[in-house]
């Protein structure tokens, strides 16, 4: 089913585009100074694991201009554990004290200084004397899991209990298989690396605290602050500004809590802006996976059984036990077992980054599937078309299932609402000219001297929000001139969440996008909203927005019915005008209606629509995608170049094509980074990050890659607003798969990302 729309489906400009092109948009680092405001700097551990046996801050405190110093001696520990609702992303020390006497990674916080300016604060940091006692540090997941391994941090085991999804009987399944393919993969350590730097201002007034920060997790931070400082939610007000890109980095983080703590001690507003080094090395990174995959298939290419064991390097404080994945279902087999184990190491904490588990696990699955297709001699495109997930299939590995079990000890059935995978695969293959370019596994599609080319493909999926993400509380207030204010707690990080929610609102209310003013980023004003993650904005979030708009519409039609002396059920709104369906000339403009007194009240109507809504657990709307890559390997220089890339996405109805195209392109650039030059290098000896900046953590620039060909397969999702599903995170998921498979076909050796010249050279050597 599709419906006629007048706003939805258009590439309308971003609501905040004017502010962006004129430099007027304020990110957290741009906020004006407050009266008496001081600046904070953090002293960080040079050791991956150590005890602070002695710390002397007297010289720092005595430095003129310094207003406060805090260390582990300041007891600022709340009852933390309560903020552990299951979806929280703990990429900082949430179980221990805010500043711990035991530091657990290079960069862990040891002390904070506030002073009249940043330079004085920096000067003061140098005056703090710290004596450390080094403790054994572990940088390797498998080492950390060993019996008797030293404890990574003072609380909890090194490896969390596995979260397990199982259906059928995998042993039986593997017995039915003619071939069993086993594979182990890993990826590099990617950093979110937004261009903007994390920043915040904290300010106490009496026993109430306000925090201004760029974030996608407005209410999560409010809740965390409430727990850490044992405050009532009414005493905590968080204001969020847009983020200069997030990709998962701008959730809550300890640095915000530190600013709040020192603001209390200094009795001043405190501003804390992280340096580029700190952004890269102390906030978080993507979890590095180590995955053992096993797939059983029959001779005719039917997948019958699959098993995955997915370790995730959580670093010092990450807490991931289930990587927000759903991709293990992407091939429907009767038997499967998927196990996730979060492991702590003395490295930079890890947490969600764009795509999360659907990137890591999809990579493992799809590499193994490529090998499986090779084993039975079936074209990968054909293999994918034969085995993939379809509308109405069961989502065994949906997180709903985990949390239903965790919270209610129930085992619900979750159904996939729609899947356009087949079309994505078919269209992508055609655009890539797969028929002509694919010459068999490990066989280049063309050779020109020392330049060999190969093609590869991969598919993936990602959630569009989930039931346990909770509710979004939305209001729509109609102004006397027919414009309206939409209040939402959605995060603004370049995904255009404000614009697309407003488009949904405008569509329902028959007005133009420009009529909608979005109010966001204030915990006192906005309804409680889940962190803007898991691509929940357009599917899950917009369901609430749509419901609130419909609620407003209901009221408008009732008032209009009075005005027009008609039945509300016979009315509709289009082009800012309410009219009687069937006799369109009987109508009233929204402006006139909203500004004309009605007899009953002797005043113009007041309309406020509201809704609080999430998604139900029994249906899951997931986006689907198929990516195709053509790469060129220079066998002389061991360099790789991307030649052509095709991305086909089913995100349901595309509410704003330009926005979605930008999202897909963004995923392509980021994941090409993951595949090649974007990897944090940890020093083997110290665990310190050797490339903490853009000089050596290389992001893709405007000269590095060809433009991708982007296509949308708009399968109408009955469960999504106007048929829409999510898009933002999934865009990264299939890119590395397609690239790695293409490299394999070019040179006949499988290489896991990062695909560096070194790895290519070793691969070429192993071949000859």
């Amino acid at each position, binding site marked *: 089913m599709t419906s006629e729309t007048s706003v939805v489906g258009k590439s309308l400009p971003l609501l905040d585009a004017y502010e962006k092109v004129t430099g007027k948009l304020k990110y957290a680092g741009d906020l004006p100074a407050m009266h008496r405001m001081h600046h904070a700097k953090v002293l960080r551990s040079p050791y991956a694991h150590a005890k602070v046996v002695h710390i002397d801050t007297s010289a720092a405190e005595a430095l003129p201009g310094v207003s406060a110093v805090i260390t582990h001696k300041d007891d600022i520990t709340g009852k933390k554990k309560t903020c552990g609702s299951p979806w929280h992303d703990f990429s900082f020390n949430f179980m221990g004290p805010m500043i711990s006497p035991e530091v657990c990674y290079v960069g862990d916080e040891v002390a904070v200084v506030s002073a009249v300016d940043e330079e004085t604060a920096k000067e003061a940091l140098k005056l703090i004397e710290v004596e450390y006692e080094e403790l054994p540090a572990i940088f390797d997941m498998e080492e950390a899991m060993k019996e008797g391994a030293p404890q990574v941090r003072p609380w909890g085991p090194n490896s969390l209990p596995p979260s397990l999804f199982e259906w059928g009987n995998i042993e039986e399944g593997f017995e039915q298989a003619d071939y069993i393919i086993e594979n182990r993969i890993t990826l590099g350590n990617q950093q979110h690396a937004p261009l903007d730097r994390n920043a915040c201002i904290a300010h106490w007034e009496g026993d109430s605290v306000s925090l201004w920060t760029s974030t996608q997790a407005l209410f999560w931070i409010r809740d965390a602050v409430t727990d850490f400082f044992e405050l009532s939610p009414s005493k905590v007000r968080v204001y969020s500004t847009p983020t200069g890109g997030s990709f998962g980095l701008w959730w809550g983080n300890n640095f915000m809590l530190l600013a709040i703590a020192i603001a209390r001690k200094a009795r001043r507003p405190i501003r804390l802006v992280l340096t580029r080094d700190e952004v890269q090395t102390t906030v978080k990174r993507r979890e590095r996976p180590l995955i053992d995959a096993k797939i059983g298939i029959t001779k005719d290419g039917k997948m019958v059984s699959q098993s995955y064991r997915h370790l995730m390097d959580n670093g010092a404080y990450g807490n991931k036990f289930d990587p927000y994945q759903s991709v293990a279902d992407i091939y429907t087999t009767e038997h499967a077992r998927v196990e996730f184990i979060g492991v702590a190491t003395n490295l930079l904490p890890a947490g969600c980054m764009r795509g999360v588990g659907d990137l890591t696990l999809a990579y493992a699955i799809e590499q193994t599937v490529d090998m499986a297709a090779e084993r039975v001699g079936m074209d990968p495109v054909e293999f994918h078309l034969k085995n993939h997930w379809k509308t109405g299939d069961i989502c065994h590995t949906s997180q709903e299932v985990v949390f239903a079990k965790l919270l209610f000890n129930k085992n619900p059935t979750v159904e996939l609402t729609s899947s356009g995978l087949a079309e994505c695969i078919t269209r992508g293959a055609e655009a890539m000219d797969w028929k002509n370019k694919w010459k068999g596994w490990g066989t280049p599609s063309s050779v020109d001297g020392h330049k060999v080319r190969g093609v590869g493909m991969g598919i993936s999926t990602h959630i569009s929000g989930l039931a346990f993400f909770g509710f979004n509380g939305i209001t729509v207030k109609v102004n006397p001139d027919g414009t309206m204010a939409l209040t939402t707690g959605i995060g603004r990080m370049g995904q255009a969440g404000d614009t697309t929610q407003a488009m949904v609102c405008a569509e329902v209310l028959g007005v133009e996008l420009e009529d909608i003013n979005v109010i966001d980023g204030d915990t006192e004003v906005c309804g409680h909203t889940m962190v803007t993650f898991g691509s929940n904005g357009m599917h899950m979030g917009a369901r609430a927005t749509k419901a609130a708009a419909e609620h407003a519409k209901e009221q408008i039609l009732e008032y209009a019915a009075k005005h027009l002396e008609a039945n509300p059920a016979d009315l509709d709104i289009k082009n800012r005008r309410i009219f009687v369906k069937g006799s369109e000339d009987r109508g009233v403009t929204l402006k006139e209606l909203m500004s004309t007194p009605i007899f009953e009240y002797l005043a113009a109507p007041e309309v406020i629509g509201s809704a609080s809504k999430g998604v139900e657990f029994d249906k899951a709307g997931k986006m689907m995608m198929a990516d195709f890559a053509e790469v060129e390997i220079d066998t*002389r*220089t*061991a*360099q790789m170049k991307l030649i052509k890339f095709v991305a086909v996405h089913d995100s349901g109805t595309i509410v704003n094509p330009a926005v979605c195209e930008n999202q897909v392109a963004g995923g392509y650039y980021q994941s090409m980074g993951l595949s090649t*030059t974007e990897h944090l*290098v940890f020093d083997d000896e110290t665990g310190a990050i*050797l*490339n903490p900046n853009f*000089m*050596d953590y*290389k*992001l*893709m*620039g405007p*000269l*590095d890659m060809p433009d991708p060909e982007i296509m949308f397969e708009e399968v109408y999702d009955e469960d999504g607003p106007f048929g829409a599903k999510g898009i933002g995170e999934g865009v990264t998921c299939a890119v590395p798969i397609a690239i790695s498979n293409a490299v394999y076909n070019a040179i006949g050796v499988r290489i896991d990302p990062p695909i560096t*010249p*070194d790895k290519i*050279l070793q691969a070429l050597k192993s071949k000859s």
Partner: protein
Amino acid sequence: MEYYSPTDLNEAYSLLDKYGEDAIPIAGSTFYMGHREELFDEVEAVINIKQLGLSYIRQDDHGLRIGATTTLNEIFAHELTSKGTFGILAETVKELNINEVRNMATIGGEVCIAGEVDMPTTLLAYDANIVIGGSKGVREMSMADFHIGYLNNALEPGEMVLEVHIPQPPANTGAGFAKFERTAADLPIVNVATRISLDNAGACAEARVVAGAATLSGVPERSAAAEAALLNKVIDDTLIETAAVASGDIECIHDFRMSAEIRSLWVKCGIEDALQRAVAAVQ
């Protein structure tokens, strides 16, 4: 910290004398500002040398003279350095894909750092000399002697670089430059500059094969073996290959940016590419 912006050389020299090792001359400031945190405690006086009239490119009987504060983009655009005998200079600049840095960074800055930079590699291939000034007078030194290690040069306290002097190469000279990097806007991981001058019979009378950014010594190095392989021979593909293979005498650094093995491979590939370009460019 003090800041000075002298307008004549004597004033600059007396400031350099006054502060000795605690003074830092600043030209484009792209390196200094990028490292200001590390350098902060070491520097007592910043001496801006951009008002000293050292921004020029001119040719005389002795070759080409480029003032120390001439920016990379000025070199890129100037008639004398963007085509003809010295066109290789612009080709070298072209490989730095950051327009804003090219607008700021100076040839003097490049020469003084000689770490992960491109220009010194090309200049060494042209037997360039560095003209050094101080209150004790002016001296000229070969590039080879000037660079004494990674980010380290032969300037004495009180001295600064005034000019880069590139002798006029013989007729029938061609040059080529090659750069290997991780992304298009990157520091060089390896760069190579070659210059060949042919005799009337078309054989190689003079050869320079230089690799930079990758060397264990931290400064651009000539490959004696590669140069020897070329001398007195007519350069063809086979000879280029021989010369490239001979470049094994340049030892490469191994660090988190890239392995020594890849760098050595790229030195070899770079020599092939740069020599091909040099042969094509002979005029």
